[in-house]
């Protein structure tokens, strides 16, 4: 066994409970309020220490965390960072949990080898490298987990934000909220066309009141959707064109010829109902 590993092994064998206690004290001393609520901190620390001890026993290279000897340590760290990312802990809290292990272990080394400064420096260095790598791995994993959470939420938002509603017999509407990009247009197009097939609707109203800006690209996406709807044999009305957007469209020279546009959803519905043959009249109250 490498001499540095040997020293760490002795500390973990003789004083693991002390190390654990000091570690947890260190963690809770500087942790944020949410981090204190992590009830599994003790078990996490215990199993991590155990895995670390096994790794040291297997004589893993402290400068290479990819070593097969550290496999269990890596597994535990990954689990730890995912559970913490899911609980909404900050990256700082998560990495601090791992880095706080340094102090009790350094203290142990100091106690054991205080009289041999040469060996002490070497052991401290390899231990420090090891813990740093552990923290790095935790952070990298934490980041990946957060990104996964974000992309999943994005997907959910995308699906939530494009409902196709039936306004009247043979009249469908899609209230568009937010910026129109290719993926959203695709999604809207697909769900709208599918609903047209299912319901046999003759008119689809796309309401763009919630679309903040219309540029050439957005207009192109709208045109595509309208063309696809026409190809299916239904008609399309674009409603909710605000004055500023009308100005932008004209200034950009976007050709919306052949597309029916209305300023409000109410106007569009009135036109649609007239087209499918309904007349609306106020009852004598």
């Amino acid at each position, binding site marked *: 066994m490498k001499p540095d590993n040997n020293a760490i092994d002795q500390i973990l064998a003789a004083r693991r409970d002390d190390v654990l206690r000091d570690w947890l004290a260190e963690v809770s001393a500087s942790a944020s309020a949410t981090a204190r609520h992590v009830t599994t901190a003790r078990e996490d620390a215990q199993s991590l220490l155990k895995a670390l001890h096994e790794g040291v026993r297997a004589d893993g290279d402290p400068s290479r965390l990819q070593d097969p000897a550290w496999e269990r340590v890596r597994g535990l760290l990954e689990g730890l960072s995912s559970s913490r990312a899911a609980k909404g802990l900050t990256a700082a809290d998560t990495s601090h949990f791992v880095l706080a292990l340094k102090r009790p272990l350094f203290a142990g080394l100091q106690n054991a080898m205080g009289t041999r400064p040469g060996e002490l420096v070497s052991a401290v260095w390899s231990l420090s490298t090891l813990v740093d790598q552990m923290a790095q791995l935790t952070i990298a994993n934490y980041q990946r987990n957060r990104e996964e959470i974000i992309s999943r939420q994005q997907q959910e938002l995308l699906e939530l934000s494009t409902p196709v509603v039936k306004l009247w017999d043979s009249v469908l509407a899609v209230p568009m909220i937010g910026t129109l990009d290719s993926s959203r247009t*695709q999604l809207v*197009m*697909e769900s709208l*066309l*599918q609903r*047209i*097939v299912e319901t*046999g609707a*003759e008119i689809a109203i796309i309401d763009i009141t919630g679309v903040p800006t219309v540029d050439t690209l957005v207009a192109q996406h709208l045109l*595509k959707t309208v*063309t*696809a*709807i*026409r*190809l*299916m*044999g*239904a*008609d399309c*009305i674009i409603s909710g064109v605000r004055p500023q957007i009308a100005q932008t469209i004209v200034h950009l020279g976007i050709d919306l010829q*052949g597309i*029916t546009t209305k300023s409000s959803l109410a106007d569009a519905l009135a*036109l649609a109902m007239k*087209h499918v043959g309904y007349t609306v009249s106020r009852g004598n109250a």
Partner: protein
Amino acid sequence: MQRIPILQMGTSLLVTIQVDLQDQTAMALQEDLAAKIDATGASGVLIDISALEIVDSFIGRMLAHISGIARVLDATTVVVGMQPAVAITLVELGLSLEGVRTALDVERGMRLLHSGAAGERRFGRAR
């Protein structure tokens, strides 16, 4: 070679495409249809593509050509029952089939042909 049957219903011709269209078949259909319109003096052509699941640019252009040929022979073409995936594909291919009239199903397509207003698009969008 496979040929798509063309049925006559009054003054209209009905073409139902129920197989995957080969380029050869499509070419033959184009010729047959032109001959049939000429022979019967039909005023309307209804093409049902509800069973068509795959289109390429060739078939897309062929639909536009058929409509063009029919128009020259003084008949109106209505394409009915296009699947969403087909519509999206055609749009992505940049084929908007301008001048081809469309309807959701055969019934509505027939109504469109018979209404006589088939030459004019709804909402006063003349074509």
